[in-house]
């Protein structure tokens, strides 16, 4: 029995979900892996406390977003992949949407991007998003508004006009 067995179990169960979030945040597979690995390396240190009464997944997700923002603030360059995102040959609507989304997400600020990922991928409420990002609900509302406005300008086909009302 290894003292890290509990952590291993947690990572085994949740790493793919966390990796998806990391990938949406960074837009690059290698960066996402680096990001998640560095966060998990910190989580190991807190594991005894987290496993007793904490919520490891929420903690890790929060650390992931904060680490991503910290990285971006240190102006770590985003390295867009030169390869097409998929090896599939058929460029259907969904594929085109993904290509467009990848491009427009790269044009958002790190906080706006985090808002989009947390609100529309993680489906967190405004209150939960504010908790993860350590900001006020008002800040979440305004950042989301700005992010959606930018998305709408860059890729109007992706964003419903009514979406903002729904999210409010």
């Amino acid at each position, binding site marked *: 029995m290894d003292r*890290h067995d509990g*952590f*291993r179990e947690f*990572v*085994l169960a949740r*790493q*793919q979900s966390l*990796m*998806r*979030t*990391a*990938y*949406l945040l960074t837009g690059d*597979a290698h960066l*996402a*892996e680096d990001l*998640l*690995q*560095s966060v*998990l*390396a*910190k*989580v*190991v*240190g807190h594991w005894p406390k987290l496993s007793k009464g904490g919520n490891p997944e929420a903690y890790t997700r929060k650390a992931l977003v904060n680490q991503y923002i910290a990285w971006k603030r240190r102006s770590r360059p985003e390295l867009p992949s030169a390869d097409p*995102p*998929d090896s599939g040959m058929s460029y259907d609507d*969904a*594929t085109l*949407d*993904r290509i*467009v*989304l*990848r491009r427009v997400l790269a044009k958002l600020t790190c906080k706006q991007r985090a808002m*989009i*990922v947390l609100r*529309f*991928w993680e489906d967190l409420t405004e209150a939960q998003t504010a908790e993860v990002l350590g900001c006020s609900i008002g800040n979440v509302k305004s950042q989301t508004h700005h992010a959606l406005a930018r*998305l709408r300008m860059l890729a109007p*086909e*992706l*964003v*419903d006009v009514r*979406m903002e009302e729904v999210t409010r």
Partner: protein
Amino acid sequence: MTRLRSALAGLAEEAPLVSLADAAIAGHRRRRRTRLALTGVAAVTTAAALVVTVAAGAVVLPRGADPATEAAAVPDLPDGKVGAISRAYLTPCEVGKKTKRVDCGAVEWRVVTRSGRTYGVPQALTSSRDDPRVPVAISRDGRMLAYYSRAAQAHVVRDLVGGAEVTSPVKVEEDRIGAGSMLALSDDGRYLAFDPREGSKEPGLLVDVRTGRTVSIPGRYEVISIKDGAAELIRYRKTDLWLMPVTGGGKPVRFDGTFIMFSEIAPDGRTVAAVEFAELNKRRLTLLDVKTGRTLRKVSIGGLPKGSGIDGTGIWLSRKEVTVVVSGRSGGHSYALDVTTGKARRWADLGPARKHATVLPGVS
């Protein structure tokens, strides 16, 4: 679901599959180790300052491993091409300065490239329940690295020059890795020999990592190398040498005497160098004919530092030169021995002399 949500979901699905638990634990240990090292350096600095105050001019050097080389954090071995490596070594356990407690939690395998860069290999298992030193293997040319991956529950072969990685299709349970386990790798990285417990009667395994085909190696034999399509197997005490083709077959030849520290087969395909047990302290090698079992000649080694002892033999650099691993006060060194003249020349330095902690190309 809106198009944005479905596009986000589609993009998220492009995230690659990962296995990060062991890497994260290794990262945590590295950070912790760096912190400890920095604390240690601070303590030594303070101590040195005190000594200077008491006796000007006195020099205090920390004993044991140099924290700058042993404990400093190094980057992890990246994916893809990193270049051939000259050796791999196991980092030492930490000993608490005050408590004197030994902590082996941060031990990891590291590789040193020929250009001098050092990388940690956190994915390589360092110890199992019964084996405090789970081995890695390096091909003769330093191009291939084999290790046991806990995540894959199998051995992994990395081509460090080409960038490819192959996981052995033959799963080996971690608990099977017993005390004194052994690993050897062929030059092309295709064949892997795994002995779960050297010196026991438990059979070993020769694995073709491309096809998953395995050949059982009788437990009495230990693997020295895999070269030119054959595994060199030794049965000690008698002493027998069996050049077993990688597909199985062949038969052993018996030597007259007891020999240890066998080299790989020389480029002539029929000579090996070994040390006769009775001559262990005489700095003398014996060249043996693997076809007939006859002793070809004895070679007394000249040019080794005083007080050093022979730790083993290794690969042949040419038809005349075989490498000899030597350890002494100044650390571990590899010498190239000209078997026609007996003269040895310094070939490579292996860092701090910690037996069994360094793995050289082609030496299992």
